């Protein structure tokens, strides 16, 4: 009973914390982000297991976490408002070569990051060549090039 409650509490807390830190934090993982994830895992391990390091307790916690994840995916698939709240929506950052500065500021994304995505994904080097840049729910920036005239 206690192990299940611990796992639920950790799952809810981590979901909330990662939602607060924003979708950018989980994409384009840097070496430091990777280390940070390991440290988060280490910090939560003791809270999840308590002082019971038995195989039974470990399996119970894993089953609870995976079960919660399945339930969350089911909820997102069946309930559109829940999906919007938990995953967010795409946000347009550039239209027709024009950066939308207020949105970029709020999404904490600079022009350099958009141009980096444009180079990596479409081979574009200038903002004017971008028809649409969209911050996707995954945290990646999708680039749609302008059609040649």
């Amino acid at each position: 009973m206690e192990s299940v409650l611990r796992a639920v509490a950790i799952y809810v807390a981590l979901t909330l914390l990662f939602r607060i830190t924003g979708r950018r934090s989980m994409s384009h993982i840097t070496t430091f982000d990777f280390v940070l994830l390991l440290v988060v895992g280490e910090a939560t391990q003791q809270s999840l297991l308590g002082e019971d390091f038995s195989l039974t307790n470990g399996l119970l916690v894993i089953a609870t976490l995976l079960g919660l994840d399945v339930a969350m995916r089911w909820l997102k698939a069946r309930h559109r408002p829940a999906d919007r709240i938990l995953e967010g929506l795409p946000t347009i950052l550039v239209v027709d070569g024009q950066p939308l500065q207020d949105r970029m500021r709020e999404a904490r994304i600079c022009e350099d990051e958009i141009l980096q995505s444009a180079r990596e994904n479409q081979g574009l080097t200038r903002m004017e060549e971008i028809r649409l840049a969209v911050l996707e729910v995954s945290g990646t920036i999708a680039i749609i090039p302008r059609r040649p005239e």
Partner: protein
Amino acid sequence: MAPTQLQEASRLVGEDLAFQRRVWRFQRIGWGAMALVVLLGMAGVFGGGPLAQASARSADGAIEAEWEWIERIGRDSQLRIRGLAPHRGPLELRLEGGLAGPVEISGIEPQPAGESRAPGRIWLRFDPPPEGERAEILLKLRSSRPGIVSGQLAIGEAAIPLRLVVLP
């Protein structure tokens, strides 16, 4: 850029800027809340800091105690006791209520000369301090259950009520 282009693009990608702005606002509030939690943690609201410290003295001044009134499960906290032996002979410290139950004593300095237990009560006997000096005793406490623990420390007739809030 014509506004219609943005509207058209917005419709194509399924954007809802008003909703997204609410999400960004929620995130900014969340960052503030996280910073507040860190500051409160440093101040000791979750144990282990200045705000978690408490002290008390019995009415006759025979016993003084300093302890952490906010505690967390599995973490050792210190209960420092200074007391005068009521008369010649060993100093007998009595722990009553929650201090002899949900809270476990994980360490005692100096080692007591004797110890006895009864339900809800622990007696610890120490060598008496030199004449006119107070004995200083350090107990390390550890809780295994969250909740509020109430107990009492006593030497002879002098007593101090203690309360601990144990966080999960």
